């Protein structure tokens, strides 16, 4: 059963379309991320699920029940806000108890449950602190405990780690991940950090300008992006124009290449997406086994990154950027040197715009 289901959901602010006709099904227990650049409508989507905004059009269901215009307090979801939104006039315990008391849980029962939730985020020593006496990371944990103590069907997280420094962020990422598998609650996680989305999620939905462009697991999102925007937004990638002839053969410059999928029929040109690390470099004319694509090129530039080298290679189809791990036995190529560029057909994806 779907934990959250959006059917043709649109949100307009005056004439501005913030969320544009989104269809999305998030399964029970899933860690689902909404990924996209600033202003693409992630928060708006989340706020519609939480009940802070209502869709202009479309249907929204939680746990198989259409929730329509239910106010936030009538929805089985809880939110971890971007800047935590802890109640400044209440201490940690009171903050965490709040949701339970509002649900008419008896006070001592609420206190026990809250204390347990606070233990699970390792803040038992700070029960009586006010939020402004806590570090960012600690506030973050209180916000988590405050939401999770209610055992919602769905937990909504709006860039919860955005305000933390890198090290703490990485720590919290893995903590969130293990918390997710412990509690078995559906997480809907909003982020504009692609790495965060890739490392944490079961599935990712990539958004741009209010549209949901692709929903897939992290591997497919990274290795087989369907749209130019998705490819471009996530990681480094070569986007090069190829030509297609009437038989559907794809060419990069003068060279025929094989791709992960056939070219759309009737098209004359396609965008080929190729990750820098999926391309191999060998000395000119060296034979490479298997069904690899191979095209000749010339090294134009080499940049040292410590753990890797980056090369710009001129080919008849354009310049390709290539990344090679810096391992002791790897050949290092020099500018001006003729080389063979090769990659597996699966690594070259044809993109829609």
């Amino acid at each position, binding site marked *: 059963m779907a934990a959250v289901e959006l059917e043709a959901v649109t949100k307009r602010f005056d004439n501005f379309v913030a969320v544009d006709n989104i269809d999305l099904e998030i399964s029970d227990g899933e860690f689902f991320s909404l990924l996209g650049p600033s202003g693409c409508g992630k928060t708006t989507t989340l706020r519609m699920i939480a009940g802070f905004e209502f869709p202009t059009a479309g249907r929204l269901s939680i746990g198989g029940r259409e929730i329509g215009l239910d106010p936030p307090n009538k929805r089985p979801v809880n939110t971890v*806000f971007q800047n935590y939104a802890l*109640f400044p006039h209440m201490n940690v315990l009171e903050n965490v108890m709040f*949701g339970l008391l509002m649900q008419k849980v008896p006070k001592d029962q609420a206190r026990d449950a809250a204390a347990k939730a606070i233990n699970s985020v390792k803040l038992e020593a700070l029960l009586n602190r006010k939020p402004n006496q806590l570090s960012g990371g600690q506030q973050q944990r209180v916000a988590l405990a405050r939401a999770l103590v209610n055992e919602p069907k769905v937990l909504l997280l709006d860039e919860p780690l955005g305000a933390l420094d890198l090290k703490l962020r990485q720590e919290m990422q893995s903590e969130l991940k293990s918390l997710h598998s412990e509690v078995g609650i559906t997480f809907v996680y909003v982020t504009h950090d692609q790495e965060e989305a890739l490392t944490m999620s079961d599935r990712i939905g990539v958004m741009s300008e209010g549209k949901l462009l692709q929903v897939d697991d992290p591997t497919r999102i990274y290795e087989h992006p369907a749209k130019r925007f998705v490819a471009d937004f996530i990681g480094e990638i070569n986007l090069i124009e190829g030509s297609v002839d009437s038989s559907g053969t794809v060419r990069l410059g003068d060279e025929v290449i094989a791709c992960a999928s056939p070219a759309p029929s009737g098209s004359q040109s396609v965008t080929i997406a190729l990750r820098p690390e999926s391309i191999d470099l060998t000395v000119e004319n060296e034979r490479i086994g298997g069904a690899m694509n191979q095209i000749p090129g010339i090294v134009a530039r080499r940049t040292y990154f410590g753990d890797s080298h980056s090369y710009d290679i001129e080919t008849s189809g354009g310049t390709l950027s290539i990344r090679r791990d810096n391992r002791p036995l790897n050949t290092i190529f020099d500018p001006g040197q003729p080389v063979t560029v090769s990659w597996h057909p699966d690594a070259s994806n044809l993109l829609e715009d």
Partner: protein
Amino acid sequence: MTSLDHAAAHSQARKGRLLATPAGLYIVLFFIVPLLIILAYSFATRTATGRTELSGWNLESYDKLFTGLVMRTVWRSFWMAAVTTVMCLIVAYPFAYYLATRAAKVRNVLLVLVMIPFWTNGLIRIFAIRFMLGSDGPISQASESLGFGEFRILFTPTAVVLGMLYSFLTFMILPLYVAIERMDWKLVEAARDLYADGFTAFRKVTLPLTKSGIIAGSILVFVPSFGSYVVPEILGGAKTLLLGSYIARQFGQARNFPFGAALSVVLIVAMLIAVVINQRTEASEL
């Protein structure tokens, strides 16, 4: 810190002191000196002819504070100021809330509308109220033509409270507006998200978080109400003697400057206490 930094900081501090001098002078001249004069007068002697002699310092005027009439007047003033404050709060809160939640453009227009009567001479406004409440005013006429008979409210404590409510409402609206406006609405959303209905979210989050505005507004209304003179003089009639009028009377008909000064000291001390309370609560919020 290098010596250059030191010199810069030093000259900065000197500049600060220099800039503060006019303000300091102003405070001394217009606040400290008059206060000291009042304090001195409160210990002075009143001769049988009503003259004040700045000699023979004594506590006689302070003794007189503990008579029934004074106690009753202070109590009545306190009570009416309290009622005015509560009523201002009840009237102003919904309005300030409405104001703070409008779009910026509407909000500015409404703010100007709030300020306009405030810029009008207070005396004129009170006379306008007197006309409104009077037996030939519009309210009374309406009530008469509807058969409810004459509307008698002028020269009652109710009229005084209404007048003060109207006079000091702005003092309540503005701090409330500021407090509500700068509140983080995400917190209200968080409360709603945590299963509070609209009213509970208001009670548990909005109200406590705008406490500073409530306290500041209450003090700004209570203090002038407590010592108010013009409003009770014009709307109150003879029966509602309040502290402000009583003090004025000491400097007028009664010609008892020392006693008037002692009463003023009481008023000032009451206000100081209010201000200290305000600062305490503000400090404890941080």
